[in-house]
């Protein structure tokens, strides 16, 4: 019984939150890694692309709600996703046209493109705030919980509750579907294969007749889609606030680099690694330990490795350790 309580506590406070956070990071990191692999620069504007995409989804959600369209127990935002992705894709394609293409034609060094992307980041940041404002916005509707802590306690008779929010379930399921679709696209379709070829060796790809502009455009569209989906899931699960996506940039880059920049599989592994480390290192293990250990060994202290204030420090630490000891990341991506 006590082991069960320990397990439930662990699930409630560590596994479920970390898994959904990890899924959101993984989707974000996939976008970063794709851009890095194919366009060869670190896109700092990715966080704000997520914010912009989410803002669009929120606007369409409101519009749908105004029309009386609902998805029953699921949030209406899922229905608004395709519209949001379309607008975001249009924006990033326009940005590519207006900004990045100029530097690409000049064969600018990656570091210049990084700085350019920072400029784009600030503009997108402003545009998003201008459109939707700076306040916290909650746009979830439908069922809030798959199971609440109270119901779980009643059902099982355990002392500990287990809450599973529907947004967490949706996040994990959507992430799996999106990742599967992306891998199918990259490995099985002609366009996907040409993208991988372009990523592996640009000159050879050009010689074999691959149209670079098309590859670039498709990459941007996919990145916009990933960003919008990741942003919307994050916003549904927590709350939308334009500034928060800017803060997400660090854990997202940590995830992409840990996994190996340019490696999609690495981005996913990195996302979960960073999420579980952030939650695990800052969690106070006292309760779990009290359930597992015999009474005589029950701890007095909180058994917390570091205060939750240092959550971001975990991402930084992982980033630095990986860069020092394995610059290409766990999955042999490109060295930074």
């Amino acid at each position, binding site marked *: 019984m006590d082991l069960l309580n320990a397990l439930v506590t662990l699930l409630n406070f560590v596994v479920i*939150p970390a898994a959904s*956070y990890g899924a959101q990071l993984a989707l974000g990191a996939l976008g970063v890694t794709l851009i890095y692999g194919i366009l060869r620069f670190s896109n700092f504007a990715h966080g704000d692309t997520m914010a912009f995409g989410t803002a669009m989804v929120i606007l369409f959600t409101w519009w749908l709600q105004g029309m009386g369209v609902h998805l029953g127990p699921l949030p209406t935002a899922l229905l608004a996703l395709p519209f949001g992705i379309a607008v975001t894709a249009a924006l990033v394609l326009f940005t590519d046209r207006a900004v990045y293409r100029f530097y690409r034609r000049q064969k600018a060094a990656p570091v210049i493109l990084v700085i350019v992307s920072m400029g784009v980041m600030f503009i997108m940041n402003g545009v998003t705030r201008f459109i939707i404002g700076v306040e916290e916005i909650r746009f979830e509707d439908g069922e809030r919980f798959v199971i609440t802590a109270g119901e779980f306690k009643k059902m099982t008779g355990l002392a500990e*509750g287990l809450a599973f929010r529907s947004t967490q379930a949706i996040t994990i399921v959507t992430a799996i579907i999106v990742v599967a679709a992306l891998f199918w696209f990259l490995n099985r379709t002609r366009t996907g294969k040409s993208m991988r070829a372009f990523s592996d060796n640009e000159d050879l790809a050009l010689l074999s007749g691959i149209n670079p502009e098309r590859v670039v455009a498709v990459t941007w569209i996919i990145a916009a889609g990933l960003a919008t989906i990741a942003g919307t899931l994050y916003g549904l699960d927590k709350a939308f*606030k334009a500034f928060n996506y800017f803060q997400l940039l660090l854990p997202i880059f940590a995830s992409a680099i840990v996994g190996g920049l340019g490696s999609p599989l690495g981005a996913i592994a990195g996302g979960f690694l960073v999420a579980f480390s952030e939650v695990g290192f800052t969690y106070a293990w006292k*309760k779990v330990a009290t359930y597992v250990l015999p009474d005589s060994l029950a701890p007095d202290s*909180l058994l917390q490795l570091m205060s939750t204030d240092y959550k971001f420090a975990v991402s930084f630490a992982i980033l630095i350790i990986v860069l020092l000891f394995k610059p290409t990341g766990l999955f042999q991506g490109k060295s930074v």
Partner: protein
Amino acid sequence: MKKLLCATAVAAISAAAAQAEDIKIGVILGFTGPLESITPHMAAGAEMAMKEVSDSGKLLDGSTVTPVRGDSTCVDAAAATAAAERLVTTDKVNAIMGADCSGVTGAILANVAVPNGVVMISPSATSPGLSTAEDNGLFFRTAPSDARQGEVVAAILKDRGIGSVAISYTNNDYGKGLAESIQRNFEAAGGKVTISTAHEDGKADYSAEVGSLASAGGDALVVAGYVDQGGSGVIQAALDTGAFSTFVLPDGMYGTVLEEKFGTSLDGSFGDVPGTDSPGAATFVEMATAAGFEGTSSFTGESYDAAALIMLAMQAAKSSSSADFKDKVMDVANAPGEPIYPGELAKGLELIAAGTDIDYVGATAVELIGPGESAGNYREYEFKDGKITTVGFR
């Protein structure tokens, strides 16, 4: 600096001439930032007092009072200092009603008010640290120090039979000071604090913070934060994970926003907010309603009182210069004397002019003690059927 001194001297001389003038009072509150939902009401409270005095025409031979607003942002000391500096040097305010949050109040006091010799009365800065701040007798507050609120919260907890609590506080002067005060008083009363940890405002997700709070456990969770910021996020995460169901919500967490956000899920939670059952409080709420703002919102009465005290002290000193009237603030605020309630500022001004001593009671039963801070009256409230209801006064 020379110029500044000259300007101050000239201002002082012209003020001493005691002719009808246009007195400016700075209203520095966090119109943006974590308190932005309550500051408009606070400013409205202070400006109502100024209008009352201006309309009466009884202050210093018919002087009028004009409010000048500045944004303290509540969190950014540099921005708050710049705003106060602008008010003092450009707008030439005679006194400052503000600031709101303890951190920025301390910054403005040290960097602007003391160097320029301007009186500052804060309606809501409650950090115990401000009691000992270097102020040259220029700083007062109509809000009590959190050292007092800690006693009240501990007493409420004890009376409700709560044996152990976890504390989550917003990571600034206010949160830290209040959390320490609650912990000290509660432990002295025999209670147990399982954990006291900070949360950062403005984050999307507080599940990690709540995870460690839940691990430490406790009968209730004390949230010493802000209602528009992390405080609500912590409650949300705690409710979602089922970590806590009873919350203790001190003044910064008081707001009708909670009713809208959480509805009946907060039933059984309770807290305290500065307030009094003195007749002045009811009068003030009526006046506020007539003027079109929420008189029950946090610190609106204190704001009215802060502004009123500034003007009454000016009258008592027969001068609108801070250097002259700073010594009169305590006199007009405290007994003995004729009690003055909200809406009676004209009467108060008349009495002072006639040489009668007054005791300003105002909306919050102001009684300034020690280094010029309110002795502190609190209203205990709880959530019943998703609504905030008053339990009693302490």
